[in-house]
């Protein structure tokens, strides 16, 4: 008996959707627009925060030692620095390593290879590559390395300050969050109102039927069910349309952007840009909009 009712509720929902096809199409389209805006903002947000992380990882300090300096002296300085609570990681590259890496990097350039062979002494300095925990500690550490303590050992401190870029990206991110949240809120309200009106019209169209259903003893959920089914169809429809629209973005656009930001990463291998995660999220948003607006319409116009 229960499964029979369930089947009839779903069937009536489909019939309602079909009988008011134009209204249904309008409701689905408004919901689709909301979902597209939501998806674009979500991707922009994910992309920006991902870029910030990537750029943060590129910030470091390179300290070049004077050529011919004893390795034990360098190790002493390295140990000193390792005790600094601000410093996260120090990578040491010896003169020989630097030379080998340089040679390997230019293995295909016969001119460089030839010049290297001519050399009697390794001109490349040993380096320490330093990363701090916090972005704002970089200038301080760089200054210290340039200071009196290390003046006799370190010839040059190279610090690429990307903080301006990071700061700018942070601002963009905050803008996306505030502007995006407002935009999503506005369109959510529009979508809720349109679905609310559509369901209200369906209730009005089926007024007689609903009245008779009540009188012959249909349960409350048997009466409400078809309206919820109808709005569920809007949610499914708009999720499918939006998901299809985003396939080219995932296959064509996003890989190019991420390749630009970080060439080592494949977009489909990061959780951040998982397509199915986006689809699921869109469906949850659509479902929320549909259920909220339908319950509002039912509560207001469907007397049980």
């Amino acid at each position: 008996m229960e499964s029979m009712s369930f089947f009839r509720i779903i069937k009536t929902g489909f019939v309602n959707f079909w009988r008011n096809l134009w209204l249904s199409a309008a409701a689905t389209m408004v919901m689709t627009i909301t979902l597209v805006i939501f998806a674009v903002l979500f991707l922009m947000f994910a992309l920006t925060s991902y870029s910030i992380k990537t750029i943060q990882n590129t910030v470091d300090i390179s300290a070049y030692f004077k050529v011919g300096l004893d390795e034990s002296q360098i190790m002493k300085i390295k140990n000193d620095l390792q005790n600094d609570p601000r410093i996260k990681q120090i990578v040491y590259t010896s003169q020989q390593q630097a030379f080998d890496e340089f040679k390997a990097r230019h293995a295909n350039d016969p001119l460089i290879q030839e010049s290297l062979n001519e050399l009697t002494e390794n001109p490349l300095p040993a380096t320490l590559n330093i990363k701090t925990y916090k972005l704002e500690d970089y200038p301080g550490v760089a200054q210290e390395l340039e200071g009196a303590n290390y003046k006799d050992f370190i010839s040059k401190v190279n610090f690429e300050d990307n903080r301006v870029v990071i700061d700018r990206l942070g601002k963009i991110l905050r803008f996306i969050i505030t502007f995006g949240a407002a935009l999503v809120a506005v369109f959510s309200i529009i979508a809720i109102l349109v679905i609310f009106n559509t369901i209200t019209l369906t209730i009005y169209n089926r007024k007689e039927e609903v009245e008779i259903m009540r009188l012959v003893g249909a349960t409350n959920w048997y009466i409400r069910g078809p309206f919820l089914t109808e709005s569920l169809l809007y949610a499914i429809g708009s999720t499918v349309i939006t998901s299809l629209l985003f396939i080219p973005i995932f296959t064509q656009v996003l890989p190019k952007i991420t390749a630009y930001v970080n060439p080592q990463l494949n977009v489909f291998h990061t959780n951040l840009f998982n397509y199915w995660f986006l689809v699921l999220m869109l469906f949850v948003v659509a479902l929320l909009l549909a259920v909220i607006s339908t319950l509002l319409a039912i509560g207001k116009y469907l007397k049980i």
Partner: protein
Amino acid sequence: MIKFQNVKKRYNDVHALEDVNLEIRQGEFISLVGMSGAGKSTLLKLIIGEEKIDGGRILIDDIDISKIGKGDLPYLRRKIGMVFQDIKLLPKRTAFENVAFAMEVCGHKKEKIAGDVPKILDLVGLLHKRDHFPHQMSGGEKQRVAIARALAHRPVLLLADEPTGNLDEINSDEVLDLLLKINQLGTTVMLATHAADLVNKVKKRVITLEGGKITKEQKEGKYQL
């Protein structure tokens, strides 16, 4: 079966029912008479839980219906059939489908519906019009389909609110005969009407309402105000 104990119902300042005390026994045929606005429809609506009482108690088989939750009201309504003056058939459904609709919404299986509906249509004498739409039937026939729909759940009580209000004499007689037949088969019938000749033909219990109060009760009565 049904007891009204000091029942009160108000619509804003209007007293629709005042201190109504009434007992309806199983198998009875009761004519509820009175002028328009006397409270007949209100009394019927209270029984099916369509309206809430403002005082007193209504007991159906010793259950206080004001204590029945919204979720359980549908199950009460399946035990009570109701027909109206404006008939309320679905215009785009045939006689068969209109009756079947009542069974569908309560979750009956297709096979049961296919078996039961023709029997009910036969009872109201309209099996031959099973595939007719409401606009293809006379007023009396439509009302008989509505009665068939009310009988779909085999109710113990049938409430008829001015069922002949829009019908001519011949059609009214047909409907009345059908209500009497249903009563003979064991269903309690409550007929609210202001058609005097109809009540006079029935010669059963008559309750007269006036200004929301019961002013007269006759065991085998006539229409009297």
